[in-house]
């Protein structure tokens, strides 16, 4: 199976391990990821606050490149990029003329844009993952953290379960781990405020991490590099601020799949995390 793949800036830098594990897992499932060599930034987290046109144009530039490339499904590992791509596709008809003026070409709107999580939890792939599980993650009690952008707003994502999605839990269950119910799966972690307003991020991550701990999780699964970064890198500060002991490794769901499929922590870039997964 061939699909388009847009890693986005963070997967080439701070979230390299997401990229690595995603590619490894896809490869082992027989999925070929087709990536354009010089994709550009989609503007996630800033462009929409600066200019409508930029917010549409930045992802569109990449969409235009993909539509020439072939595979009619484009998967995005980063939830923020996914959200911008979806929004651009949604807003495109309203800005069609302007976009033509900018790019001198038309977007045929035929691409199917999916998040990597949503893609891998499709019925067929989920089954094939299940079949390949070698080392069930029975030692893990996992809360699935979707964050804000993977399912919201439903108008743009087309997601039906936008308030209380469960597809990540399904995957976690198939991997042999125990998915736990909790109240914070779509709460905001502070997103790009990690750098510009860290106090906010600490508060928001504090709420999320503490609820995860309270329901008895020993791992949080994520599908977004921003979420991972905030929950992982700010965890020490949260512990200090709230006088709690959290010690909650934040793993990309692809890393969880990789582990269950028998890959080693090193292969999956687990060492890059500040809060280590101790097995």
């Amino acid at each position, binding site marked *: 199976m061939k699909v388009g793949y847009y890693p986005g800036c963070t997967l080439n830098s701070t979230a390299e391990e997401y990229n690595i594990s995603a590619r490894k897992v896809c490869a082992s499932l027989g999925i070929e990821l087709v990536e354009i060599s010089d994709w550009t930034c989609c503007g996630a987290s800033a462009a929409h606050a600066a200019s409508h046109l930029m917010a549409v144009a930045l992802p569109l530039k990449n969409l235009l490149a993909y539509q020439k490339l072939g595979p009619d499904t484009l998967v995005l590992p980063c939830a923020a990029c996914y959200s911008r791509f979806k929004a651009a596709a949604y807003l495109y008809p309203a800005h069609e003329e302007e976009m033509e003026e900018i790019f001198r070409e038309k977007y045929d709107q035929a691409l199917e844009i999916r998040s990597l999580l949503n893609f891998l939890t499709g019925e067929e792939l989920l089954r094939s993952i299940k079949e390949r599980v070698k080392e069930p993650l029975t030692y893990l009690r996992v809360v699935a953290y979707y964050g804000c952008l993977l399912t919201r707003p439903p108008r743009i994502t087309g997601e039906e379960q936008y308030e*209380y999605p469960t597809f990540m839990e399904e995957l976690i269950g198939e991997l042999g781990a125990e998915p736990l119910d909790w109240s914070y799966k779509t709460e905001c972690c502070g997103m790009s405020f990690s750098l510009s307003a860290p106090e906010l991020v600490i508060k928001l991550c504090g709420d999320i991490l503490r*609820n995860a701990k309270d329901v008895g999780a020993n791992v949080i699964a994520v599908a977004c590099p921003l979420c991972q970064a905030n929950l992982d890198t700010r965890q020490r500060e949260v512990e200090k601020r709230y006088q709690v002991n959290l010690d909650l490794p934040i793993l990309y769901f692809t890393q969880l799949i990789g582990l269950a499929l028998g890959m080693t922590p090193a292969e999956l870039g687990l060492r890059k995390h500040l809060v280590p997964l101790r097995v």
Partner: protein
Amino acid sequence: MNFSGYGTVRNFSEMKGTELKESSEKTGAVLVVGGGIAGMQASLDLADSGFKVYLAEKSPFIGGKMTQLDKTFPTNDCATCILTPRMVDVAENKNIELLVYSEVEEIKGYGGNFDVKIRQKATYVDWSKCTGCEECVSKCPAKIDDEFNQGLGRTKAISLPFPQAVPKKVTIKREFCHFFLKGKCRVCEKVCQLGAIDFDDQDQIIERKVGAIILAPGYEVYDAHHSPEFGFGRYPNVVTSLQFERLLSAAGPTGGHVQRPSDSQKPKRIAFLQCVGSRDQDHGYCSSVCCMYATKEAILAKEHDPDVDVDIYIMDMRAFGKGYDDYYNRAVEEYGIRYIRCRPSAIKEIPQSKNLLIKYQEGREGLRTEEYDLAILSVGLGPGSSSLSLSQKLDLQLNEYGFYQSDPFQPLLSDKPGVYVCGVFTEPKDIPESVIQASGCAALAAGLLAEARGSLVLEKTYPPEKDVSAEEPRIGVFVCHCGSNIAGVVDVNQVAEYARSLPGVAYVETDLFTCAQDTVLEMREKIKEHNLNRIVVSACTPLTHAPLFQETMQEAGLNPYLFEMANIRNQCSWVHAREPEKATEKAKELVRMSVARAAHLEPLTKFPMPLNHDALVVGGGISGMTASLALADQGFEVYLVEREGRLGGIANRLHYVFENQDPGELVTSLARKVEEHPRIHLYLHTELKKFSGFVGNFRSILSRRTDDGAGEEIEVEHGAIIVATGGQEYLGPDYGYSRDVRILTQLELEEKIASNGSVLQGIKDVVMIQCVGSRTKVRPYCSRICCGEAVKNALRLKEINPEARIFVLYKDIRTYGFMEKYYTEAREKGVIFVRYDDEHLPEVIVAGGRFGPKSGSNEHQRETEKQAAPHTQDMAFSVGQPEPTGHSTAATMQGRGETSASEQYWDSLTVRFYEPILDEMLELHPDLLVLSTGVVPSEGYEELSRLLKAPITQDGFFLEAHVKLRPVDVAFEGIFLCGLSHYPKYIHESIAQAQAAAGRAATILSKKFLEVGGAIAEVDSEKCVACLTCVRVCPYYVPIINVEGVAQIDPAACQGCGICTAECPVRAISLRHYLDEQIIPKVESLLAGVV
């Protein structure tokens, strides 16, 4: 006597787009679809006025949603208490054929003649054999979630829906039954000693001919799973309001102990979340009842445990019904319930305690988090699950929300002639409104089928009654095993043996099931064979079973009052199961008591009393005219009395409603119909002067002002009277009204818009103030119509000038039901709504000074208002006010805090008010200030109340006999009420209520005779000393002191409560069937051991 109730009468009903086939004979039967409170009411009214009724109910029991409620607002009447007798009435009524577990399959034909096919689903139990003993239920191994208890309890695959279910028969749910699923079990079949289980039962198709159809299929509550942010279905302590009703109910899964599901602990902090599944983008309407039911549930929670804290998260408190604001105020002041004006975004759960966290913000306060033990979602009322398929069968169009929205001027008619609609099916509404609509439907159907009245009803005849007065008591005692229900605990044979020893007992037998069909048949023979003249059935409860045995007695020629039951099941074997010996002793005692009373019973007859079949209607507004037409169409003569020289009342001043119809045209067409109707006798310039008599036979004297100024008196006799005296606009001096030509009431504005809207084109700024003269200390009630009126007029102004800035200052916006759509539309068009409360009342500054609401004065209205009115006539209306010097209005609105004192605008109109969201004072200089003034009762209501002995509320509106179930009856039998005289209401509501009043009146007027007598009070005129005690204590105003100077009780009006008998100081009154000599022996026999 001009008798017109029965027989062939010309029918004047004018149907919408009349398709009625002229020649064909109409069928005197009606199909009612839906057995909720609405469907039951319609059925009873029709059956009581000469029509055959087929009541099709989807579920295996009647009563609808009300069966699941605990208490009902605003009286906190126990729902079961008021509903159960109604359900029994329906089941017993010989002219109602109950088709439960049935749905309409097909409808063919047209108004007057329909052929309907109804599918009655298989119950797998032969109901003619089942006695509802529930032996099978206790043994059935298939446990399932209890739907009736909203999944909070468990029941079995074979079950009785709930203990008081009518009919009291069990049903097998095929989808859960082990036998149907796995082919094994049949336990119930083995257990049932009556052989009632029938696994081969099939759906039946039942075909009936009817003349009219009434649709009352009700609603479903919103499925809270669709609002996942609140965690319903995931957090055990988040429940719906309907589940909470079950938790409150003493008959519910927790026995009335309010417990939270996670740990069965008593909750200490409870939150209600309002508008769940209402008033949002997917549900653009308001569910109308949830503000009130949440308040009710909160009060009940407080009554269960005064220490519990209750917070209600709400947007607007919609307490728009009669007595509702009072109820709300009590909730706040007496019960300390906190209303928080915020819609929480989500509920979060604390994992360890399963407590719930809710974040909210109120006013300018920052965000706060509150922790609760229990959260209740006030789910909205959505369309019924089968509304769609039902309406498709009839080719009816549902509105965007899935309800059947009718024409506001014909609220009970569907688009299909002969098909009527009522209850929540047409719009969310509460119980009284549903009952009103149902009675109205009954009146309209009766109008359509007037010529066929009485053609299909059964009048059961019995063999002549044996005269037993001279005989010694020969009592037959039937002791029931009730399967093992009684015999399992009580030694039935011992009881029977004992009964034989009692004086007067001539025959005793024991039966496996006394109520089983064949046993009942045999009872008839036994009565004859042993020449029995009194019957005692020693079995279960008379509340459900007495009618069955009494009918049997009548068939055997015995008077039904010679009957007594000893309740040795519900009050003995079931409740003393662990003490079988004592239970047997008690059973004997109960039988002894019953036998003792039976020996003293006497036959009672109901005798026919002739009655007058004409009606008097007082008040010729929309309500009075509608009621008159509905009665006249049914063939009754009507005397319509109107004080003024013109029909139409307040509606003469209304010019449009939301849906764009013209009330003026409605008035004109109604007036024309009234004037042309051969059965309506119209008296203009006329008032009621004297009134006397009793239900069925009233005598009134009317006084008419004649042209020559003299006046004449007219005497009329009538069987019923309808009060439709309406109301009027409140015109107090509030907010500078009458001080400035720019200050108008909504009605005045409406007149202006209607007469020449274009003069308003230049209007830039308009302020409307709500609740003027309503919801104040003096008039604490909500006038109900003014929120809608303001929205309606604001939309009109926006049409005339889209640029106009309109501010509506309100306490709560009460655009309930589908009206919410227009509130949304007004906002979409830019109308700005600003909330105020009693601490921050708006202030108006005009030349004459500063004005607020004048709610301190104590007069009911009058003094000020009439004098205030004249200025409206000579008001020179000027467009484009002089801009006030200094700030422009826009400038004042923009920058923050520019709220300079404004005495300088002495020549301008200034409204100063507090804006609570941004927490600042705002000041406007509007071109128009419109006061949303309320409704007050018509002049002379007090005199009329005295004349009719019809009580009024503190606010001056006529009081109904029972707020929930008799909303158009007056406690004094034979008097009915409707329209504004009952309470402020919109035109469509007045029309429905007027039709209901006509329907209720027709249940009396259509009778050939009034059946009077039975268990009612009687005065011994020899003993009476005319002390007036009975006159004072009777809750129904029945006793009077007659010309002979002694008390007289009208047998047709007496309700048989016996209150007067117990109060009469000289024991001159006795209640038949409960005579002292019948009750005292019963008491004495228990204790003495012998009679």
